[in-house]
Every structure is written in structure tokens, then in C-alpha cells.
């Protein structure tokens, strides 16, 4: 099968998968009981409660309720958040964009740094640079994210004052329009260099906190994969052809070492989405974190379902991209199985 056909087929399956995910998500949230609780207040009498149930179709069978939910979701209506006292669709996007911006930025930094460190250590096997990198990797994998984030916060914000907390400087944020909700993108679209730098400055500490663990995993995987590839005969065969060491690494060993590493990178994406909530709380990042915590405690099912649905879709996309890169790197991968 051609790679292009494979991508098309995977994209066609995607809506089916999302539909399946939505059913599972709906069923799982409803196990917790009726979502009515979050909308009630003490002054309401039985008639008013019944009217609410009527309005949200909670008196109908579950299948019908799902149908109403699906119809709403398809038209961009994800229900009403009791916690935020507003429709989910109005509150969700800015917060989601804030969380996404942090996760994506951390992922890019973590992948880039992890691959670079892995190659750095793998090509200097058993030298001091390799040992030093191993120390970094082991600490990244073993330090709890919360602890590490707080230490960075104390040193670089409280003591040195080099980096801020929060997501933006208020007047800079207000000086540009926010069509996407991603501060960096909005700054680029507005052509405002100052706002863009402000965005990066605010992203720095939280994305290091969030990305450190992923850097550790990617570094270790890339290093061991590269060491393994460098021992293969084809590397010596490339040298025997007269290739400079630069090309032996770039075209042969490093490229092939990426194959197993890509799989690990796919897994770390999930890891990052998990950690984002903790990083947000440490750095007062205005993402989904706080809202989601409240939503879970107070049984705000509309909010929870939207969150789980969006992150699932993201995860499906991330996996698709990983699979495509994987197939592109390794021709032995049998597409379509």
C-alpha cells in the first residue's frame, strides 16, 4: 500500500474512532449518575427541578440523551457548565488553547532537546559527556514534576526574579486581538514582537517543568538506539564508501535510530497532557487545570465530557502523525495491517 493511501484510510477511520470514543466517554460519565446535581440550588422546589430535567432532556432514556448530546456537540454546543455558570463552548476554548499552547511548546522543546541530547551522548559513548547526559536523564525521569516545578519557581521567580508566573503581561495581552487563543500565534498574526517575546518568556519555566520528564525518556531511548545502530555493519559499509562521519551519522545511523524513538515520542505526548494540569497549578497558568479539578469534584459532566473528548481526539491525531512518520522512516513497516 502506498503511504498516501494509508494516510487517507487512516483519516477516514478517524471519525469512526471519535464516534466510538464519544460513546465510551458518555457512558463512563453517566455511571456517576445524573448530571443534574451541579445545576441545582437549595431554593429550587420539585417543579423547578422537573423543569430543569425537562430542559436538559434528563427525563428521557440514556440513548435519547446521548442523541441530544451528539446533536449539540456536532453543532458546537457542548452543554452548560455548572461550575463556570456559562455554556461550555464559551469558556472552553480560551482555557483549552492555553493548555494546548503549553503542552505543544513543551513537546517541541522536549523532542528537540531529547533527540539532540541522545545523539550527543550516543556519539560520545562512555565518555564524560555521556555520563553527564545520563545524570540529566535519570533526574528527569525520577524527580516528581511537582517538586521540580516548585524548585524552579523558588529559584527563578521568587529569588532571582528572572522569569514570571502566569501566562502574559496584562497590558501586552490586551494590546493584541486573540483570534486563535494561542498567545504566541496571536502575537505573530498581530506582528507584535514584544507580545511574542512576552509569550515565550512566560512559557519558559512551565514548559521546562512539564518537558523535563519527556526529555529524559526521549534522550535515553535515542541514545541507546543510536549506540545500537552505530554497531551495525551498514555503518562501517557507509564509512567504507568514503562517506564523511557527518553523513554516516545523518543519513544512516541517526535516521535509523529515530525509528524506535518515534514510538516513545508518541507515548510521551500522553504523558505531557497529563502533566500539564500540575504545571498549570504551580505557575498559575490560566488553562483547563483548575476548572477541570472543580468540574470533577462537583460532577460537572458537560465540562468533563468535553475535556475527555477533545484530549482523546488530540491523542488520536498525535498517534496518526507518529504512525505516518514511522512508516516514512522505515520501509519495512507493513502499511495497513
Amino acid at each position: 500500500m502506498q503511504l498516501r493511501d494509508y494516510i487517507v484510510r487512516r483519516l477516514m477511520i478517524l471519525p469512526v474512532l471519535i464516534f466510538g470514543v464519544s460513546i465510551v466517554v458518555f457512558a463512563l460519565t453517566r455511571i456517576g449518575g445524573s448530571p443534574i446535581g451541579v445545576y441545582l440550588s437549595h431554593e429550587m422546589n420539585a417543579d423547578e427541578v422537573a423543569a430543569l430535567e425537562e430542559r436538559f432532556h434528563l427525563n428521557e432514556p440514556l440513548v435519547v440523551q446521548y442523541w441530544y448530546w451528539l446533536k449539540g456537540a456536532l453543532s458546537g454546543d457542548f452543554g452548560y457548565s455548572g461550575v463556570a455558570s456559562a455554556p461550555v463552548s464559551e469558556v472552553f476554548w480560551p482555557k483549552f488553547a492555553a493548555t494546548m499552547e503549553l503542552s505543544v511548546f513543551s513537546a517541541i522543546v522536549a523532542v528537540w532537546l531529547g533527540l539532540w541530547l541522545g545523539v550527543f551522548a550516543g556519539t560520545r559513548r562512555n565518555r564524560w559527556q555521556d555520563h553527564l547526559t545520563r545524570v540529566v536523564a535519570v533526574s528527569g525521569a525520577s524527580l516528581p514534576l511537582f517538586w521540580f516545578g516548585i524548585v524552579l519557581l523558588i529559584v527563578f521567580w521568587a529569588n532571582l526574579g528572572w522569569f514570571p508566573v502566569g501566562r502574559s503581561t496584562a497590558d501586552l495581552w490586551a494590546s493584541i486581538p486573540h483570534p486563535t487563543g494561542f498567545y504566541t500565534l496571536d502575537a505573530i498574526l498581530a506582528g507584535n514582537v514584544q507580545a511574542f517575546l512576552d509569550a515565550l518568556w512566560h512559557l519558559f519555566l512551565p514548559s521546562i517543568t512539564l518537558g523535563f520528564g519527556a526529555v529524559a525518556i526521549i534522550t535515553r531511548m535515542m541514545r541507546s538506539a543510536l549506540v545500537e545502530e552505530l554497531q551495525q555493519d551498514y555503518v562501517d559499509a557507509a564509512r567504507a564508501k568514503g562517506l564523511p562521519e557527518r553523513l554516516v551519522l545523518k543519513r544512516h545511523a541517526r535516521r535509523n535510530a529515530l525509528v524506535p524513538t518515534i514510538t516513545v515520542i508518541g507515548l510521551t505526548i500522553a504523558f505531557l497532557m497529563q502533566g500539564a494540569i500540575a504545571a498549570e497549578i504551580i505557575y498559575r497558568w490560566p488553562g483547563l487545570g483548575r476548572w477541570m479539578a472543580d468540574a470533577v469534584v462537583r460532577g460537572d459532566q458537560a465540562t468533563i465530557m468535553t475535556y475527555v473528548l477533545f484530549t482523546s481526539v488530540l491523542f488520536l491525531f498525535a498517534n496518526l502523525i507518529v504512525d505516518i512518520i514511522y512508516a516514512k522512516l522505515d520501509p519495512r513497516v507493513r502499511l495497513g495491517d
Partner: protein
Amino acid sequence: MTAHDMPKAPVIAEVRDLRVQFDSKRGNVHAVDGVGFQIRDGEMLGLVGETGCGKSVTGRAFLNLIPRPPAKIAGGRVLFRPRGGAPCPDCAGEGCEACGRTGTETVDLLTLPPKPMRAIRGARIAMIFQDPGKALNPTLTIGAQLAEVFLQHRSEALLAEAGVSPEETGWQANALRRMAREEDRWLDRRLKGLPPLSSAAAKLDAALDAHVAAALAETQIPNPARVMRAYPHELSGGMRQRVMIAQALACDPDLIIADEPTTALDVTIQARILDLIKTLQRKRRTSVLYISHDLSLVRRVCDRVAVMYAGRIAEIGTVAQVFADPRHPYTQGLIAAVPRAGTGRGHLASIPGSVPELVDPPPGCRFADRCAHVMAECTRANPVAREVAPGHQSVCFLEKTGQTAAPATSEASTT
């Protein structure tokens, strides 16, 4: 070329007293311990011995591909005189003893700086590896892997064929030059498909493809255009080894190191690959160091043979001499073992025991504990090479007479 012409051909490459040691947990492994031999222009020299005798390490020395660490070169030289190399400084190209009458400057491959070494690798000295399934990169097409040889060593020809003259300057010519040398930058690759660069770049690609297809056709690969687009796992073992041979011959090298090129292949196609190597070697008059643990193969294709045991040369001579009159007990054992099946891997039917571990070995003949003729002196000192016939030497105390001659320094010992 017959064996009788051999001594007259100039020496193109020579190993002198090569010593390679590997650091291991158990100690210092003397994998190659004073090996010396010469390779003449246009000859096929066999290097035989059981597995673990140090044949591959010796062969890799010609390309300076011994992994350091764990290995270290404890001594010796690997000399090479490429055809058409710089003139000999001693005789200004007239031909003298120092350059083996080739008139070409002698280089020591073990101390050559990386850049001139890379110019030799793949162009003047090439290697065919034991297992083509491992020596080809699984994630690149055959065409891309062969193209690399031409991009490294034939970029001037490629540029000429693409219509870029050497005088031409300007960013387009420079971008094409970078592409032809595999030094292209990110921007070059982006611009490659766009006018005005695209037509010249397409010509460059076409020239490259033509070279690759011609190289593949040379090794009788059917349908080279299809094979170029294939990945190694889509080809059979025999086809892959043909690709390796095509790659080794691509730049018409002076010397090919063939390290057990048929060992990993199906028995049914071993003979065909062997014949192919022999045919191409004859046609191009290339020198080949043919490494094998199988004496019968060496007998079939080689002009001369060096028998190696436990890091040292045991016997060397023309194929006729060594097979008609094997002098060294190890050679005799090898010849007696030839027809039996299931040998190799350090076991020979006619010689009990196996290759000793070479960790800090004591003085004496390495073969002593397996030799039926062992004498007291064999374990006291190292035997020296003695000439038993012109060009035929045996390194054994059984040779009481004959001129002593270390095979390493038999001819050009004046340098």
C-alpha cells in the same frame, strides 16, 4: 593472468608486521600478531584460516576500519600505492625499490589523515562485506545507497554530465555543486524542485541514475531500474550481494577486500557469486584480497594464498605451490579437512582442538597444542618464515633449511 606472471607484477599493497590488540575483560587479545604479506597488482590473494584467526581484522586494516577502541594498533604498517597516485618522491615516478617499481608514492593507510583516507575508501580500495543483509542500510533504497559512492567520488563527472562547467560561478552552479558532493543545505533541497534550478538538478539526478544503473547492470542484475527503487529487504540474499559487489566496483578501485563474500549466502548461489567476482576481477585487473575460511573456494579463484592461524601467517605461496606441497602442519590439516561437511566455526575434522584464546599469549608457535609434529623448541620461541621454494614460505620449525625471510619484508625491505 597465470600464477607464473605474478612475481613480476608490482606490489600495490603491503602489510608489514601488523599487530592489533583488543582490550577485553580477560586481558589483551592479540588478534593480529605480526602479520605481513604483499598484494600484487591485478592478483587475487586468498587469506584463509578458521574463524577467529584475525582475517577480518587484517582485511579491515586496509580501510582503517578497525574499531578503536576497543582495538589498538600495537605496531606495523599497511602500505598502499594507488594506480595514478602522486609520483614517488624518491624516484620522481621513474620506479625504484622504495615504491616497488610502481613510480607511485606509498601511503601508510594506518596513519593517513581522515580526509585522504576518505578519498581512498570506496574509490581506490573498496570492501565487500560478509553479510549483505547487514551491510546494506535497511531504510534506504538500493539506488540511494549506490548513489552515495558516486556523489563522494565522481561529483566532477556528474556535474559535467549535468552541464555545469568547472568555470561557472554564481549561486545556481554552486548549489548544484553542493548537491553533487552531498553537501547540499536545507535551502538547496527546497529550491531543487523549482525553476531555475529544477532542470539542471533533474539532469544531475538523471546522470546519477545512469551511473547507478550501469553499475548494477555490470553485476548481471536483471532490471536495474526496478532494483534501484527497491529496499534491501525486498531482494534475495544473492541479489543483495550483487548490489554490494556493484557498489564496491562502482569507482573502479585498485583493491577490493572481499571478506567471506559468499559465507552468508545460500549454497546454491555461492558459486555464482564467486564466479561473478572472479570474472569482474579478471576483466578489470583489480587486485582482490579474498578472505575465506574455505580453502576450496580460495583454490578455485585465487592466484596466491596466505594461510593464517591465530593472528599470524602460517604459510604463503601460489595456489599451485601450497596445494601441491603444503608445508605447514596447519595447512596440511586444512587441506585434509576440505571435503568434509560441517566444518568451520573453529573446528576441523582432521585437526583436534580449536583456535586458542589470544589473551596475552606466551612465546612459541601458536599451533603447538594442536600440532602432531610439535617439538621442544616450538614452545620456546616463535618460528620464523623460511623460503621453501621461490615465493613459497612456511613459518614452522620443521623447515630446517632454506633462506629465512619474514614474509612481511621479503621484497621492499629497503624502505
